[in-house]
Structure formats: structure tokens, C-alpha cells
């Protein structure tokens, strides 16, 4: 004969097993959600904290030329879009670069990584623009000289077409001056943006023309931002 306490114990265990079986899927869902949350990179978190592209409904709509790539990926197909753009060159640069990052309708003609973000943009008194992109600009871009040059060229040409105050461009990645964009293109110096004063440069794209080292300009920028 089975003792009464053993029956109670068996029953309790059975109830616990049934309860666990019912609770387990819900627990699994909760764990997965928690896992996804913890998997968010610092990059994504920072991106979420960033203010949205500063577009004011009061700004007049103007025609903007965006330099996305061609289907073959080795040339540009300028696209004209209408955007409300600020007259302030810094805001305007942010607006056009965010639009460039958002990408064209056809994702195949994208020149910049989809998950890259513009973290900051500064304009120094000498016309040097400093664009600080997230690390994805480096880690998500297709490897190669051509793809990196296309990325930088699309940025400089878009700025040249829409923000005439920017003469040169310095690219930072996550606030740091990097040796290369993704192992090929040199980021230690500035890229010429406004080529109007150069005369003809048949072989050189705007982005390929390096100008003087930017160390002084970056130091100036740092001192400005510290204030």
C-alpha cells in the first residue's frame, strides 16, 4: 500500500511538471526577447539616441542632386529629389548626407552601407567639413578600392552639388581619425569637395584629390567643440 504522503508528493510533482510545460514556451519567448535586446550593439543604441534628421517643415523645398551609384557599381547616376533644406550649411549638409545614407529606391544603386549613420557634422571656418560616421561605414562597406572610392565620391559629389560652403571633407569614424575607410582608401587627409577652382582634372575624381593634412583643422574643431 502506497503511503499517503507519497501520493501527495507524486501529485505535486505532476502539477509542477505540467505547470513547467505550460510555462516553458512563454519563458522561451521572454528569453529570446531579452537576448535580442542585449544583442543590440552600442552602435544601434547610439543611433536610436541620435536626434532625427533635422528637417524643418518651414524650410523651402529645393531640388537636390543625390549621387547614388549606377547598376554596374562603377559610375554615378545623379538623381534629383525635392527636399526641404535649411539655409544653414551645417544643417543642410546633415540633411543631404542623411538622405544619401537613407539610400535610393533601388537598393542596388546604394553607395553607402544601409546601417551606417551620420553621427555629427562640423564646418570649420576654412570651409573644411568634418563628417563623423558610425563604425558601420567601415565594417559594412563591400571590401575593395572601387567600392570605397565610390562611397567617398558619392559623399563629396553630393556635398559639392548641394552645400557650396563645404570646400574639403574630413571623414571620421566614430569620432576617430582612421588610417583607411575599410582597408584601402586613405582617410588620413582631406578630400576635395569643391573642384570649381581647380580647372580641369580629367583623371581625378573629387574624392581622389588629397589636400593638405588636417591635423590643425581637427585640433581647431576639438577646441571649438570643447567650448
Amino acid at each position, binding site marked *: 500500500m502506497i503511503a499517503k504522503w507519497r501520493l501527495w508528493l507524486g501529485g505535486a510533482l505532476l502539477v509542477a511538471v505540467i505547470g513547467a510545460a505550460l510555462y516553458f514556451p512563454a519563458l522561451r519567448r521572454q528569453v529570446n526577447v531579452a537576448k535580442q535586446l542585449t544583442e543590440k550593439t552600442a552602435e544601434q543604441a547610439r543611433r536610436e539616441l541620435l536626434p532625427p534628421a533635422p528637417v524643418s517643415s518651414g524650410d523651402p523645398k529645393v531640388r537636390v542632386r543625390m549621387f547614388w551609384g549606377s547598376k554596374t557599381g562603377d559610375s554615378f547616376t545623379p538623381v534629383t529629389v525635392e527636399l526641404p533644406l535649411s539655409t544653414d550649411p551645417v544643417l543642410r549638409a546633415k540633411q543631404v548626407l542623411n538622405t544619401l545614407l537613407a539610400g535610393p529606391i533601388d537598393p542596388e544603386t546604394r553607395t553607402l552601407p544601409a546601417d551606417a549613420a551620420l553621427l555629427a557634422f562640423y564646418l570649420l571656418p576654412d570651409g573644411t567639413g568634418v563628417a563623423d560616421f558610425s563604425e558601420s561605414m567601415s565594417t559594412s562597406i563591400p571590401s575593395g578600392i572601387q567600392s570605397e572610392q565610390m562611397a567617398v565620391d558619392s559623399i563629396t559629389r553630393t556635398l559639392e552639388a548641394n552645400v557650396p560652403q563645404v570646400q574639403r571633407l574630413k571623414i571620421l569614424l566614430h569620432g576617430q581619425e582612421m588610417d583607411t575607410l575599410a582597408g584601402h*582608401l586613405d582617410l588620413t587627409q582631406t578630400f576635395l569637395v569643391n573642384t570649381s577652382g581647380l580647372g580641369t582634372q580629367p583623371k581625378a575624381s573629387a574624392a581622389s584629390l588629397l589636400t593638405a593634412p588636417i591635423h590643425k583643422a581637427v585640433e581647431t574643431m576639438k577646441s571649438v567643440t570643447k567650448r
Partner: protein
Amino acid sequence: MRLLRFQLTAGLAATLALGFAATSGKSSVATPQTPSTSQGAAPSSQGGQTTIPNPTQANIPLSQPRMGLNIVVLDPAHGGTDLGARGTEGIRESEVILEFSSRLKQTLEAQGFQVLTTRDGNDNPSFDDRSARANAQRGAIFITLHIASTGLPGTVRTYVMAEFPPATNTTRLISWDRAQAPFVGLSHKLGDLVQQDLAKRFRGSPATATVAPVRQLRTTAAPAIAVEISSVVVQQRGELDRMIPGVADAITHGVVAFRPSYILPLVSSAGGGNQP
């Protein structure tokens, strides 16, 4: 600012530091090194590609004085943990490029050049270490080899640096960061010669070299080009393998055509692309 690190020959240091204009007939410094014999050179005709006459077979004495170019430094990009471009079928740039470098070395050696490489195995030297391999030589050119992950498959592009802005350096030494400056004109000439041949063999390739600020070229004190094949996005690895002999022959043709015009450039204090 770091100054150019002279790693080996005192002759190179004298040439760069004193701005010695070197030509084969003007001074002992300019006397070119005797090219190495083509020991271990492979046959120059493979894979059904255009053959290149072997100078040893054409009765050209190897001891004959030549212009500056004696050594070709090949730089297979990436390596080690850096796989470079990755494509379908498990294609890895760092692996394919090693085979490409090996093939190119054979065709260049068959032309009497001494060929050095920045890596022969699965390691990844730094940019500066790779440049130093060329900077330590006299009469060398530097070719960095890449495979793209974009671009029209079956095309090849040659890249060269743009002219450098004038420097404020008052010493007569070349800054390491601007080592390419005095060689930009020669690099353009070499790049155009190579690209012209590539354009004939690979339809859709540009007719001339493309200007781009390639990091590896900036610190190289020699005529320097980057050659990039498109691309790892091919259906099968065999498509890339079939391109390699043609690209190697085109580069070799370009280098051979460039050889007579290679005169070590005069180094000015400005270092802003001074050319002979």
C-alpha cells in the same frame, strides 16, 4: 611627422636624402643593379594567353646596364585574419591573390626582373611593412594586388595616387607619409601602360589608370600602382582563375614597356610630385 625609414641600402638613403638625380650614364649611384637571372622562372606562355619573349632567349645579356628598374615588389593584399573580399563559393581574396601573385612573379622573372613579395603565406604585414619592402630597394617598382567585391565582373582597374600638395618640410628628407610624392608622375606612366594592356584584354576595363588615394601607395617610395580585379561576385572561382594569366601577362607587358623610362626622380624639399 615620421621621416622615411631607410631600412637597408646606404645607396637608397643617399639617393633619397640628397635628391640625387640618377640616370644610368651620370653617376655611379645611378648605375643600375644587375638584374637577377631568371632562375626558377616558369615558361612565359600559359593558359592560351599572349606570350612574352624571354630576354634570355632573345640573346639580351643580363649584365647589360639598364635604366633604373631592376626589381618588382609584389604585394598580395590582406592575409592572416584579414580575408579581404569574400564572395560566393567561399572565394576569399587573400587566398586567390596569393596564387595571382605567384603567377605574376613567374612572368616577371621570365623577363629578367628580380621579384620580391611582401608575403608568401597567410600572414598580414602592416601597410608600412609592405611599403618598407619596396622602400629598401633601389630601382624598384611596387604593385599591390587586389580583388574587388564590386564592379563589373571580368574587368580590371589600375589605381595610382593623385599629385600631392606642396609640403612645408624644409629638410631634404622625404616624409614617410608622403613617400610617394616624388614618384607620382612615374606611377601614372606605369599605371597607364599597364591599364592600356588590361583594357585590350578585358572588355569594359578603363582605358587609363584611375586616380584614387590608396593608402598602401602613399608610403611607397617607388613607382607604385594598385591592380584590382572585379570581382569575387562571380559564379565560380574558375572565372577568376581564368583571368589571372591574362592579367599577369598584361602587367608584365606594362612593366616591360615602362622599364626604359624609369629614371630615379629628383627629390626636392617640397616633395610635391617633382618629376624628371
